[in-house]
Each structure stands twice: as C-alpha cells, then as structure tokens.
C-alpha cells in the first residue's frame, strides 16, 4: 500500500512524514511524532482524551485520518506552555484549582478549553459545561475542572478570580 506524503505544522514546527492513509491522527502524533500528550481513551470518539486543535477547531484525533490533516496547523498539549516552561493560564488553572486527579483526561480537557476560551473569552458556568461536554473525566465530577477554566478565563481577561461558593 502506497504511503502518502504529508506536511503539517505541529506546535509551531513544520514536519513532514509518510503515512498510510488508514493511519489515524492520534496514532500518527503518538507513534510517529512521539507526542504522547494526546491520550487514547475510548478510541470511539466519545471520551475526548485525544482532543487536539486542528486549524482552529477542537477535534478528536482518533476520528481523523492523518492524511486529512495534510497541510493543517495542529496544537497538542505539548504546545500549550511557553518555550521557557511557563505554564499557560489553563495549565496554571488546572494546577491551582486541583482540576485533575489521575490526569488521563487532562490533555484533552486543556486543549478543548483552549479553543473554548478563544471563541468565548468570558464563558458562563453553563457555557463551560456545554463547551467541555465532549470530554469525559471519571475522577473529578467536573467541579474543579470548571473552576480551573474559570480561573484561566479570569487570568486571560486580567480580572481577579473569585471562586464561586458551593
């Protein structure tokens, strides 16, 4: 089976590779690009652990072929922190608000929330919950994930973060 030549920009770096058409983007990222931040959870496009940003869209990379991403601009969790290691507002929020327990869903959560906050910089709690409805967390019950995203939104908007009373 002939392989297809693809080029894409991943976390700001141009890469090129040969892929089989049937190679899923998640397998390409993890096994050929050695970016193991995006996780394989359900493999059936339900859980969102494999979420990456592709051409300004949050996508489940288990349900996209790498050849479909030819020419695309892709950001994974590895591209979120600054080059000097400074955490992004969302990464800091997840850390400060205890937005993770086992951490398996976290790369997908942060990558999805990254696009959500670009499209809607000041979301309500409902909008956050609907915005991350494609990402499943089996540890936290989502309370602290929502707080982490609220923390990040406040930081990005330069306003003080007030934790809502429970």
């Amino acid at each position, binding site marked *: *089976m002939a392989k297809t030549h693809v080029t894409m920009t991943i976390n700001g770096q141009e890469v090129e590779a040969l892929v089989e058409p*049937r190679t899923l983007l998640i397998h390409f990222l993890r096994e050929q690009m050695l970016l193991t931040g995006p996780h394989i959870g359900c493999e059936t*496009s339900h859980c969102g652990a494999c979420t990456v940003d592709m051409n300004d869209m949050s996508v489940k990379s288990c*349900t*996209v072929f790498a050849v*479909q991403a030819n020419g695309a601009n892709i950001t994974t969790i590895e591209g979120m922190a600054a080059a000097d290691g400074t955490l992004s507002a969302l990464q800091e929020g997840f850390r400060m608000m205890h937005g993770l327990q086992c951490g398996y869903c976290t790369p997908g959560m942060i990558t999805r929330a990254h696009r959500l906050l670009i499209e809607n910089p000041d979301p309500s709690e409902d909008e956050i919950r609907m915005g991350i409805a*494609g990402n499943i967390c089996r540890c936290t019950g989502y309370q602290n994930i929502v707080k982490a995203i609220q923390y990040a939104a406040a930081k990005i908007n330069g306003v003080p973060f007030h934790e809502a009373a429970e």
Partner: protein
Amino acid sequence: MIPGRFDYYRPSSAQEAVALLAKLGEDARPLAGGHSLIPVMKTRLAAPEHLIDLGGIADLRGVKVEGDTVVIGAMTTQHDLLTSKVIAEHLPIIPETSALIADPQIRYLGTLGGNVANGDPGNDMPALMMCLDATFTVLGAGGERTIKAREFYLGTYYTALETGEIVTSIRIKAMSKATGYAYEKLKRKVGDYATAAAAVVLSVSGGKCTSAAIGLTNVAETPLLAEDAAAALVGSSLDKVAIDKAVAAAEAITNPAHDARGTPQYRTKMAGVMLRRAIARAMTRAHG
C-alpha cells in the same frame, strides 16, 4: 482499532469527486466529516477500498441566500450552522437542532450533508429537513438532479441516492419571522442519539393555526413526516383537544426499535411527549 487499508483521494471539485466515484464503483465511499464512517471503518463493519475525501472541495461549504431560499453547501459543518448569522436569521430551528447533535468536537467536523445523506434514522437533521420541506441537490457522473427530503428516506441506511451520487447542497425556504418552531430531543446523555425527538414549525393567524409541519426522529426505520398529526393542528386554536389528537396521530405512525434507549412502547410515548413540548414551545414563538 485500526481501519482496513484503502486508497485516499482528495479531489478539489464535486465533478472530480463524482468522476472518481463512477470510476472506482461500489468499493469507493465519499468521506464528509467522517464521524459516522470512520467509527464503522475502525470496527471493520465498513471496509471501503477507496475513500474520496470531500473536505478539499471549497464550493461545497457555506451558506447563501437565493431569493426566498437558503442554500447550504453539503460540507457545511454543524459548527458553521451554529455560528452562521444567515441561518440564525432565516432558519433558527437549525442551530437549535445542531446544538443537540453529538458534542463540540464532533460538531466542528460533522456536516449537514453527511447527516442527511447517511440514512441513519438516529440522525437529527433528516426529520428536520422533512419538516422544513428541504430539497437536496445531488450530483452523479450522469449530472445533477434534485430530490425532496420528504421522498429521500427509503429505509435504514437506504436513501434515494444512487451509487456514485453525492449530495452537494440543501435548499430550504426561509422561515417567516412569525413562524413558531421548536426541536425537542430526549437523549440519555450528551452525544447520544435520540430516544425520540420532534421538530415542529407552525403558523398562527387570528388565534388559529394556519399551517403546521412535524418531523419525528429515531422512532422508525426512517425519519417520519407526521402529516396526520400536523393536519390535526391546522384550523384549530391549538387547544388541548387538537394537541391531544396530534400527539395520538404521531404516536400511531411510530415503530421504534427495542434498544438500550427503551422499549418500543416507551419510545413511542416519548415521541408524543417531545411533540407536545415542541408544539408548546413553537406556540410561544409564533406571532400572528
């Protein structure tokens, strides 16, 4: 889960895509958003030898107005429909429905054309397209033709599309500002198909219902146009008697599968409940 091997094509025009489909025959499948096809390829329930990706055809994506008709390119995504000002103004029942489909990530890629052409009775857009009396423009190697949504659905995964044809656009008459509308969907969780769902559009004048159309999702082998139910509303003042009659007429035409979403009896009753809620909400939106 890794799909079987296939050859990949990314044509840049619809003509090129249908020429490829004609040349490659039954072993070729068009790929739209991929969120129905890729999962079944991963489980090897589908193993096309050739995949024709329609994602590179710019002409198939976008929304425009032609006179009193809104024309939606088949590769327009659910996310596009949720964010389009033209759709919000002229066909607000569409984003109300799109918001209930799958989840944010899937809505970025899932397309209107894929949703209507797949023939899956669980998809939400087909019943809505029947309710809105949409017309699908389809293209094959032999040329272009149009098919009414109301004549498109023949069985589960079985539509009026011939092998090698693709849907290129969907034409829908703009709704009047006075039209009441609602899409009500019962589902177990985000991302699930409907246990039952109902689309309603209706017009009111002088306290009487002057026109109505009703579509039902996932309660039969195909989406349903509930014509008797709609007829029970027209001419009435949308009082309890008329609505009870419409709900009974809708329940009478369902034939849902017994699955994890419930028994046929339960899903039929839920179709009635969704219809009742949709009528109530449409009434609050109708002017006239």
